[in-house]
C-alpha cells in the first residue's frame, strides 16, 4: 500500500527548491474596447529563487499580484510566459509531471472558510487528499488525527466537527493540517493570518514556525503586514504593480531598504509610540491600475525622486549588497539618474 513518504531531496542543499524565471500573467479584459488590447498586467516578469528550508516573504499592496504569483507557482492558472523549476526539474515535464509537483507544493489561503468543503467533517477534509492519492481510509483517518494534534486541535474534540462549528483560527489550523497531509516539501501561505484576530494570529504564527521545523518545510509567505513578514521571513521580496521592486535578506531590507517604494512602505507603518507619531504620509495617492501601468519604473507616479529616466527606461533589478537587489535607477550605476553613481557597473 502507498505510504505517501516525503519526496526525496534530489538536487542537494545547494540546489534552490524553487526557481521562478520571467513569470508573466496578463489577464485579458472581457469586453475591452474593440474586443482587444485591454489586459490586466497582474504579474509582469518576475524572477526569484527559494532555497531549501528558508522562508521567503512576499509583501506588497493590494492588487500588486501576490496571489496571482502564488497561483502561478501552484500551477492553478496558466502563465502567459515563464518557467518554474522545482528542485532542479522543470515543472510539467516527464521528469516532474504536474501531479507529482502538486503533491510537493501545497497552499493555504486567507479565507479559511471558503477553502474547506462544508459537507466534509474535519477528519474527512484532512484525509481526502491522501485518499485521492491512494491511501486507504483506515490509514488516512489516523494520519488526519496525528495532523490535528500537530496543529494543536485535540482529535477527540474536533475530528467530527464541520467547518461552520469552528472559529476562524481553528479553521485555519485545519487548512494547514490539510495542506500538510500529502507530506509536501513547500507550503505557499497566502495571507494565512490576515483574517484572524491578533491573539489568534500569534497562536497560528507560532504554530507555523514549529511545523516548519518538525516537517522540514520551505515556506513562501505572502502578507501585506510588514510586521508579520519581518517576524517570519528569512528573505523578503517586495512587489509593486506586478514586478519585483526589491529582494533581500530580511534584516537588510528592514534596516537599509534601497528602493524608494520599500522605504515608503516601511515608513507607512504606525510608529507604535504615541510620542513619535507619524507627521507626514511618506507617499500620496493610491497604487495605479495594472491595466494601464506607468511606463518605465512603475513606481514613478508616486515617487518623490523620479526623474525623466524613470519614465523612459525600466530600471533593472540590480545588486546593491550581499544577496540584495533593487530595481531603481538611483541604485543602478550609470543609469543617468542624478543620484546614481556615474560609472556603469
Amino acid at each position: 500500500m502507498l505510504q505517501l513518504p516525503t519526496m526525496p531531496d534530489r538536487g542537494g542543499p545547494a540546489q534552490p527548491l524553487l526557481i521562478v524565471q520571467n513569470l508573466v500573467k496578463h489577464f485579458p479584459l472581457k469586453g475591452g474596447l474593440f474586443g482587444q488590447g485591454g489586459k490586466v498586467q497582474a504579474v509582469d516578469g518576475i524572477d526569484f529563487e527559494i532555497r531549501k528550508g528558508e522562508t521567503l516573504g512576499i509583501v506588497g499592496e493590494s492588487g500588486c499580484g501576490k496571489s496571482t504569483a502564488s497561483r502561478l507557482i501552484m500551477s492553478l492558472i496558466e502563465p502567459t510566459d515563464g518557467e518554474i523549476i522545482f528542485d532542479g526539474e522543470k515543472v510539467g515535464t516527464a521528469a516532474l509531471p504536474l501531479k507529482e509537483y502538486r503533491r510537493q507544493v501545497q497552499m493555504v489561503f486567507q479565507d479559511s472558510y471558503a477553502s474547506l468543503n462544508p459537507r466534509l467533517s474535519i477528519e474527512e477534509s484532512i484525509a481526502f487528499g491522501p485518499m485521492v492519492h491512494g491511501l486507504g481510509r483506515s490509514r488516512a483517518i489516523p494520519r488526519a488525527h496525528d495532523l490535528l494534534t500537530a496543529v494543536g486541535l485535540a482529535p477527540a474534540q474536533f475530528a467530527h466537527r464541520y467547518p461552520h462549528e469552528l472559529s476562524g483560527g481553528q479553521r485555519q489550523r485545519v487548512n494547514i493540517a490539510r495542506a500538510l497531509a500529502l507530506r509536501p516539501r513547500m507550503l505557499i501561505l497566502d495571507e494565512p493570518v490576515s483574517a484572524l484576530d491578533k491573539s489568534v494570529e500569534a497562536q497560528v504564527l507560532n504554530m507555523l514556525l514549529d511545523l516548519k521545523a518538525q516537517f522540514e518545510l520551505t515556506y513562501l509567505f505572502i502578507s501585506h503586514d510588514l510586521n508579520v513578514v519581518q517576524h517570519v521571513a528569512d528573505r523578503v521580496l517586495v512587489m509593486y504593480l506586478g514586478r519585483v521592486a526589491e529582494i533581500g535578506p530580511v534584516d537588510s531590507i528592514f534596516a537599509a531598504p534601497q528602493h524608494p517604494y520599500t522605504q515608503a512602505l516601511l515608513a507607512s507603518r504606525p510608529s507604535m509610540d504615541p510620542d513619535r507619531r507619524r507627521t507626514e504620509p511618506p507617499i500620496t495617492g493610491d497604487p495605479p491600475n495594472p491595466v494601464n501601468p506607468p511606463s518605465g519604473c512603475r513606481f514613478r507616479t508616486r515617487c518623490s525622486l523620479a526623474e525623466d529616466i524613470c519614465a523612459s527606461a525600466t530600471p533593472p533589478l540590480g545588486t546593491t549588497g550581499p544577496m540584495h537587489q533593487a530595481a531603481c535607477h538611483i541604485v543602478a550605476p550609470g543609469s543617468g539618474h542624478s543620484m546614481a553613481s556615474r560609472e556603469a557597473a
Partner: protein
Amino acid sequence: MSEDLLVRAKNLNVKFVSRDATVHAVNGVDFQLAQREVLCILGESGSGKSVTLRAIMGLNPRGKTVVEGELNVCGQDVVGASEAQMSQLRGRQVAMIFQEPMTALDPVFTIGRQIAETIVRHESISYKDALARALDLLELVQIPSAKRRLEAYPHELSGGLRQRAMIAIALSCKPKLLLADEPTTALDATVQIQILLLLRRLQQELGMGVIFVTHDLGVAGEIADRIAVMYAGRFVEEGPVRDVMRAPLHPYAQGLLGATVHAGLRGKRLTTIPGAPPDLRAIAPGCSFAPRCAMVEAACRADLPNLRSPEPGRSARCIHVNEAA
C-alpha cells in the same frame, strides 16, 4: 451633566433578542467623551465595538435591540429618544464613517450630488451654494482635482479616494462628534497612513470629538488621546494612550500587547492568549476573561470585578489592580 461632555455612558447594556437566543453584546459600559477628545475603542472581533458605536447613533435594528442604562449624546438622552430626535442628532451633531465606504455612498449618484443633497437636507441653503460647499469639502479631504471629482461616480474612484469622499459626506453636517468604525482597516499601508493623518488633522482643525474603533494597536497609537480596551462587551481597561500602550493593567490588554507582532521579536515565539472569547449568548458571572487568564483566582469567577482606578484617569476591571488609596 457637564456641558463639555459629548458622550456620557453609564452602565450601558445592549442586547439582541430573538426567538432562539439573546446576544449580550454590550454588558455595562461606562465612559465619557469630552469635546475635542479622541477615544479609541480597541478590541477583537465580536467584542462589541461596532454595537457600541451604533448605540450612540441609535442605529442598532429597532425591534430586536434592547438598550439599557444611561446614554447621553450631545445633550440628548439616546435610550429613550424617538426616531425623530435621533435623526436630528445624526444630521446635525453626530456623523459616522465606516470600513467599507460603499455602505455610505450611493452608487447611482455623483459624489458632488450626494454631498450637496446631504447639505440641503440639513440646512436651508440653495443647491448651488451646497455644491460650492461640496467642492470645499472635497478640497478639505485632499482629493486631487476636486472640481473634476464632483462629477465622478463612486465606482470611478480608487479605494483611498472613496474613503476621502465618505469622510467629506460625514463632515458636511459640521459634526461635533465623529464616530469612525475601522475606517482604515481595509486600506493598503501607504493609503492607511494618509487617511489616518487626514483624520487627525481634521479632528484638530474642526475641533471634533472622535470615537475611533480599531483592532490595531498601532492605529490607536497614531490617533488616540485615550484607549478603551473592550472584551466581551465590557471596557476592561481605559486610560491615556501612552499608559495603555506601555504598561497595560488588565491581563487581557497585556496579552494583546504581547501578541501584537512588532520588530524585535524575530524568530522568538510570540506570547499568545490561549483559548477564544466567550459565547455572548450566555454570559457567565465574574470576569469574562477568567477562562483564558493566567492570573485567575476563585474571586475572579465569583463576581464581576468592579472598575478600579490605580491613578487618576486610568481604570481596569481586574482584581489584581489596586484602587488608589
